[in-house]
């Protein structure tokens, strides 16, 4: 029945078109209403007159029966008539769209091969664009989730000697900036690299990623813990924690849920963090993670206040300050003041700061920095891919339209206006685009998940690319743009051809008309051009990747497994060996150089601060890379909070013995293993302070001393204990354990248990001209034991140990 009425409406609309009656305007609707009212009044008057009423009286009676003054009635009828017309037009339009849509779908269903091809091509284009856009949106476009994020600036140090690139800042310099630069409402800092910390006291030992921050860090960002309290300013300093006897911890919401079961009682729980007493004081809000989403907990730096005067505290460029501009201060003024203060610091501390400058960048740009351009380029590339898809579909449609000229001509001859035909073709394009868009959206969501899984950990700030309203809107926009792009051509072509002309042309068999052929040709040319562009770009990328893979990292990576171990500082005597005699690796079997930064092939060849070379002798001036490396000087200062609590003490050699290792975490995988907890516990306190005190470089030669702690630190060759990681137990291979800038020896272990490193002639892999090669040459005896090593300085948590096993 409704179909019949639909047909009826269609016919009526057609008839109105035929006689050029449609559509009625607002004024016409008003006239209509007036005419109807007058006719009504006349009819009633006539009726009354026919009953014998005098005409004047009859007219008055008719007006009275109206129920309201004539003008009011007229006005309200105008309104209702106008509303009726508006509604009718909308409904007619919807009807036409409905019938056009149904017709379009029928047409598409009639040629499934064409439809499938076009939809698939479109879906691929739209899907790829959507997936990449979701990443771009998550990384680049999403504002930082902080209060007034545009007032936040990242501060950095730079030096022409280091290439003038933004470097991390040293704590003392940060503190001076905080005190002296009045343009900043507040300056707080965090340590950019998360550190793996061991949490015990909750059953299974856990390895979590912790980030050190200053006490006021979260309040400056405008964040409050979801539960519990924030850190206090005082907790930046060790004194506060000493007094409390425990380190305050803030948990991420994820850690709170997964580790503490999401219970409110988690706040106040006492745990052990790297063997030190720590208390959970709060839980950060859901979704907050800084500086990366992998962070599990935050703890205050806990610097010892006497470090303030130490030279190395001005050199340990390891923290990232963030400043909030004071109200009404422009970034230019703040930058100028910061530079002035930095220059003054250079005069005050010429030994350390003479050539150090300072600078600031908007925080968002700074954090997104490196990833912004590649992502935008990638988006551009998939945008081009979408263009190609559009051109392809446009081509298909064009050819198809050319094949339908006869049908279109018949329609035109039967009275369909050009606009109507264009609308019909446009509806077909739109139906195609919508189908493509729907499938594309599905592909996009799948692609987004794939991207999340494929992205290397730590490459981007975020690990999840949510498909939200913005992404859906983008996909819809891409669909509409695609429909417009590929739908416009056939529609225009149809518009150009007159009915009679087309009919005559259609009488001749076969062959597209010259116009169509020209457009198709142009499309193909454009498509090939864009495709060539993309192929070239992709080729270059692949080539670069292959070149990168060919770069010799300097060691044989085949059949070598790296294992990271967390050795809680509080439980180990930490010492800095003072002579090479203590570096004997096993009973007379060779030497065991140590390191704790993996020489990363990814970073090193480009000289961006990775090769942490140190000078060959403590007396010699440190090499450029050594000083530049934050690692060499960083560790005593900040990365080890316990180290920083230390009081200066003369390094004294510890009786060395074997080192027990426990499998903790693998560098290459994110799997976490329970830490070994068999070692005797040492409460965090004076004992640990004493032990770590030896990590302090001797005063007077901060740089070289720290390089010594770094590069020349040697440990006894580690015992291959029963608790060592599976890879270290391989009997057929040789294992080397290395620790960072210090040797670790569990108390009470007997020297007799010290193992010897399996002897083997090491392949001399250090043949690439890396900056640290000279060091290596001088350090590596030709008859060295199998304890392979790299001189790189400790980059990740100094408590990490690395075992290298060659199978």
């Amino acid at each position, binding site marked *: *029945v*409704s179909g*019949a*009425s639909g047909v009826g409406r269609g016919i*009526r609309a057609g008839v109105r078109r035929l006689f050029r009656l449609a559509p009625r305007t607002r004024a016409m609707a008003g006239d*209509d*209403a007036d*005419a*109807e*009212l007058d*006719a*009504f*009044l*006349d*009819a*009633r008057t*006539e*009726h009354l007159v026919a009953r014998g009423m005098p005409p004047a009286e009859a007219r008055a009676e*008719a007006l009275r*029966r*109206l*129920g*309201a003054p004539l003008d*009011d*009635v007229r006005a*309200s*009828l105008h309104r*209702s*008539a106008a*509303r*009726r017309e508006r*509604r*009718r037009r909308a*409904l007619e339009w919807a009807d036409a769209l409905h019938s056009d849509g149904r017709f379009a779908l029928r047409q598409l269903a009639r040629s499934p091969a064409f439809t499938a091809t076009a939809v698939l091509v479109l879906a691929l284009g739209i899907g790829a664009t959507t997936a990449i856009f979701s990443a771009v949106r998550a990384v680049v476009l999403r504002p930082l989730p902080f209060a007034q994020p545009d007032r936040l600036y990242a501060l950095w140090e730079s030096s022409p000697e280091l290439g003038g690139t933004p470097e991390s800042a040293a704590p003392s310099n940060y503190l001076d900036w905080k005190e002296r630069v009045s343009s900043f409402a507040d300056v707080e800092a965090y340590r950019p690299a998360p550190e793996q910390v061991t949490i015990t006291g909750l059953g299974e030992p856990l390895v979590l990623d912790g980030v050190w921050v200053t006490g006021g860090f979260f309040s400056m960002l405008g964040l409050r813990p979801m539960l519990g309290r924030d850190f206090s300013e005082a907790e930046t300093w060790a004194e506060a924690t000493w007094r409390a006897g425990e380190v305050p911890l803030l948990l991420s919401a994820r850690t709170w849920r997964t580790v503490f079961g999401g219970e409110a009682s988690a706040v106040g729980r006492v745990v052990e963090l790297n063997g030190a007493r720590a208390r959970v004081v709060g839980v950060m809000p859901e979704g907050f993670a800084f500086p990366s989403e992998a962070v599990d907990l935050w703890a205050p730096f806990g610097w010892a206040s006497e470090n303030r005067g130490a030279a190395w505290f001005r050199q340990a460029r390891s923290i990232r300050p963030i400043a909030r501009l004071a109200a009404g201060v422009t970034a230019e003024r703040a930058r100028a003041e910061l530079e002035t203060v930095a220059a003054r610091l250079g005069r005050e501390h010429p030994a350390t700061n003479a050539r150090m400058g300072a600078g600031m960048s908007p925080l968002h740009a700074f954090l997104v920095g490196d990833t912004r351009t590649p992502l935008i380029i990638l988006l551009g590339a998939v945008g081009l891919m979408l263009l190609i898809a559009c051109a392809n579909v446009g081509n298909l449609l064009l050819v198809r339209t050319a094949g339908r000229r006869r049908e279109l001509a018949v329609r035109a001859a039967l009275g369909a206006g050009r606009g109507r035909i264009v609308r019909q073709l446009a509806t077909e394009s739109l139906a195609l685009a919508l189908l493509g868009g729907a499938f594309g959206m599905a592909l996009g969501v799948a692609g987004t998940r794939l991207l999340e899984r494929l992205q290397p950990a730590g490459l981007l700030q975020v690990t999840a690319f949510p498909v939200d309203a913005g992404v859906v809107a983008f996909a819809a926009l891409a669909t509409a743009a695609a429909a417009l792009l590929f739908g416009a051509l056939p529609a225009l072509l149809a518009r150009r051809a007159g009915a009679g002309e087309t009919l005559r042309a259609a009488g001749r068999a076969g062959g597209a008309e010259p116009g169509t052929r020209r457009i198709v040709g142009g499309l193909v040319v454009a498509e090939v051009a864009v495709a060539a562009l993309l192929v070239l770009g992709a080729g270059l990328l692949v080539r670069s990747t292959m070149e990168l893979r060919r770069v010799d990292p300097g060691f044989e990576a085949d059949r070598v497994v790296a294992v990271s171990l967390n050795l809680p500082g509080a439980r180990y005597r930490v010492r800095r060996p003072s002579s090479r005699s203590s570096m004997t690796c096993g009973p007379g079997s060779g030497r065991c150089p140590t390191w704790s930064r993996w020489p990363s092939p990814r970073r090193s060849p480009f000289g961006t601060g990775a090769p942490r070379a140190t000078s060959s002798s403590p007396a010699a001036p440190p090499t450029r890379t050594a000083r530049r490396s934050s690692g060499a000087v960083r560790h005593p200062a900040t990365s080890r909070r316990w180290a920083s609590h230390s009081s200066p003490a003369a390094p004294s050699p510890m009786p060395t013995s074997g080192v027990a290792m426990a499998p903790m975490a693998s560098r290459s995988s994110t799997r976490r293993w329970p830490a070994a907890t068999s070692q005797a516990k040492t409460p965090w306190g004076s004992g640990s302070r004493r032990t770590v005190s030896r990590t302090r470089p001797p005063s007077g030669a901060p740089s070289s001393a720290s390089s010594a702690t770094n590069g020349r630190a040697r440990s006894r060759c580690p015992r291959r204990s029963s608790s060592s990681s599976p890879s270290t137990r391989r009997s057929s291979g040789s294992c080397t354990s290395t620790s960072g800038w210090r040797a670790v020896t569990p108390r009470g272990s007997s020297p007799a248990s010290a193992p010897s490193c399996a002897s083997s002639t090491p392949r001399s892999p250090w043949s690439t001209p890396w900056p640290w090669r000279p060091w290596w040459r001088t350090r590596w005896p030709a008859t060295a034991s199998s304890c392979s090593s790299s001189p790189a300085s400790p980059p990740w948590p100094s408590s990490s140990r690395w075992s290298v096993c060659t199978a």
Partner: protein
Amino acid sequence: MALLKGTLDVLVLKTLSWGPMHGFEITSWLEERSGGRIGVTDAALLQALHRLEERRLLSAEWGVTRNGRRARYYALTTAGRAALREESAALADDVEALTAVLSARRADR
């Protein structure tokens, strides 16, 4: 008699179920059938006609009356016929309920 809200539309639909009519014919028919007891102001009737046309329950065409005058003729659409069935049933229900309430006697308690 004052009309209940919404009843005018049903009455108009019912009137037009006898065939296409123009506005005055509709009001005359209503008066005649109700014995003059249903009084609808002409303005309200014309508004109702616009409203029903907007809802696509009526369709309208200009035509010529027996007296040779132009008039807007309204006819039920299919949707209008369905609406008449539904709404008259609902109205009958309401009237029944009203009657039951109003005719309740003390003894029935």
